[in-house]
Structures are given as structure tokens and as C-alpha cells.
């Protein structure tokens, strides 16, 4: 058992572990001492359950996500498949333009599949996408939820747009390819979602 910490995020520790002889990822939410403990326990349990449900549901709609092996609501731990690929964040800038476009279209297609079933990822960034076996795997549904509203879908995509502008600023036009893939596969009114994103961009603060 290695149990090496791969990544320490804001609310969880990601460890490499072993499960039935396989190398797996164990995502362990950690207790927050600043919060009232009763509430903290409820939040950890609720978020762990929600995340596991969304991952399972996303898979059923054909979106590539890690396979779930175990969910422990008391400990706040999810044991899941280890995807030994590259983060899209780390490879996107180094690809040639046609390959970059192909990847971005795929990203848009997957987001559309999520949104077709009102799954909001909640933290769409290229560091939460793993490229492996020519597929874009979506990870970290920890901020996700189910929401039928246009606003939620717009915000979901707007987060990704901002990620493209900051992390891939030279290739921020590629977000257009994401939208192209999205509108092609989104079964609702894709143009309305794009209008919503523009509205969110324009939306001033303190008005």
C-alpha cells in the first residue's frame, strides 16, 4: 500500500492507493476545524454522496469519468479508478492547432452530454480533464449539482471560458471550438446558452 498524496486540494486529499490489487485513487475529504463540527460532518457526507452520484450518472450518459469502486459516507472517501493520463491543462498548449481543435470539440461534446441531463459539473477547468486513450475524462464533480436552469449551464461554461483565458491565453479562441462541439450535441437551445454566457460576461457587479 503506497498511499502517497498526489494532490492536496482545498477540501480533499487525493492519494494513490490499492484496491483489490489495483492501483486506485482515494479522494478523502478532510475535516475543517474552522467550521462547526456537526455541520462539517453533514457537509462532508452530503458532498461525498452527491459527487459519487454525479460521477455514476455522468457515466451512464456516455461521459468518460473514473470508475467508482467504493464510497464511504462516514469517512468521506471515494475510491475510484486511477486515470494514468495527462491533464488537458498540461498538454493543450503544446498541441498543433488541428489537434487542439479536435480536443476542444470533444470537450464541448462531453459538456453537452452532461447538460442534456442537467448535470452541472461546477468546476470545469482543463485541470479537471484527463486525456487518456483518446478520450477526455472529466474528474472532480465535488462542486457539481443537478440543475435544469439555463443560468447554471451558462455559469458552468463561463468558468471554463475563464480557465481558457487565464491558462491558455494564447489559445483562448479555442473556447469557440468548445462551444461549437457543445451546440452540436446539446439538445436544448444552444444559442440561448451562448447568449447566457455573454450576459454573464457583461453582468457588472454592484449594479
Amino acid at each position, binding site marked *: 500500500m503506497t498511499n502517497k498524496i498526489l494532490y*492536496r486540494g482545498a477540501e480533499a486529499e487525493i492519494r494513490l492507493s490499492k484496491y483489490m490489487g489495483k492501483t486506485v485513487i482515494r479522494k478523502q475529504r478532510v475535516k475543517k*476545524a*474552522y467550521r*462547526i463540527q456537526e*455541520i462539517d460532518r453533514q457537509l462532508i457526507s452530503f458532498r461525498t454522496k452527491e459527487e459519487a452520484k454525479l460521477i455514476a450518472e455522468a457515466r451512464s450518459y456516455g461521459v468518460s469519468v473514473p470508475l467508482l469502486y467504493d464510497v464511504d459516507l462516514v469517512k468521506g472517501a471515494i475510491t475510484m479508478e486511477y486515470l494514468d493520463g495527462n491533464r488537458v491543462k498540461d498538454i493543450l498548449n503544446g498541441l498543433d492547432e488541428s489537434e487542439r481543435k479536435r480536443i476542444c470539440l470533444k470537450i464541448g461534446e462531453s459538456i453537452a452530454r452532461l447538460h442534456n441531463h442537467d448535470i452541472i459539473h461546477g468546476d470545469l477547468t482543463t485541470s479537471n480533464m484527463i486525456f487518456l486513450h483518446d478520450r477526455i475524462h472529466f474528474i472532480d464533480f465535488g462542486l457539481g449539482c443537478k440543475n435544469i436552469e439555463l443560468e447554471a449551464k451558462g455559469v458552468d461554461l463561463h468558468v471554463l471560458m475563464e480557465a481558457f483565458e487565464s491558462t491558455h491565453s494564447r489559445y483562448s479562441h479555442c473556447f469557440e471550438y468548445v462551444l461549437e462541439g457543445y451546440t452540436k450535441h446539446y439538445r436544448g437551445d444552444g444559442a440561448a446558452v451562448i447568449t447566457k454566457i455573454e450576459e454573464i460576461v457583461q453582468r457588472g457587479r454592484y449594479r
Partner: protein
Amino acid sequence: MDLAFSGLLTAAESYVRQGKRLEDVCYSLQETTFAMLTEVTERAMAHTEKQEVLLGGGVASNKRLREMVQTMAHDRGASFYVPSRDVCVDNGAMIAWLGFLMYNSGVRMSLDDSLINQRFRTDMMEVTWRD
């Protein structure tokens, strides 16, 4: 990083109208909103890989918020900073200090060109006084 608390405030007001004890509602409101602020701050630190956090502004004089952010920073192995309480509510001191930093970095502005803009946000400011 903007947070809106209008929904929480409406809920809190409605509890008070229903006759719930004011101190209970205030306590819950404080714990909830500050936990949100602390969580978002921690997410920002994780995302940007920063090891320091500085509280500022009027709300930074609140003891509970100081305690929560300090606890969060300590648990992440990060450093926590906060000005003394008397200057947290002193807008004149904050503006003067910023002016001092800007002046020393070469920013010049005539009095006629300076104005008050309450909608101006910290993230709209171009930082010229550090590398």
C-alpha cells in the same frame, strides 16, 4: 470571487419575524457566511498554490472571521496576516497606504484627475508596486 448573501439575509430576517431568538439567528448567520468566505479563500489558495493569506477591510476586525481564516491557514501550513483592528475600519489609512505604495512605484496623478469610484474593485487595479 464575489459572494452574494442576499438569500441568506432574507432567510435570517424571516426567522426573526417568526419569533426565533435574534442571537441564535445572528450566530447562525455569522457561522454560515464566514464559513463560506473561509472555504472560498481556501479554494483560491489551493487553486493559485499560495501559502499566504491576508485579511483586510472592515470585516477583518471581526474576531470570529479572524479565528476561522487563521485556523484554515494553520491547517494548510500557510501564513496568516491581519492588520490591527483599529486600522481595519480606517479607510483613510488604507487609501493612504495604497497611495504611498503607488507613489513609490512611480505612479503620478494630479488632484484634478483623482476621484471616488465606489464600484472600483481590487481586481480591476493594475498592481505596479511589486514584481
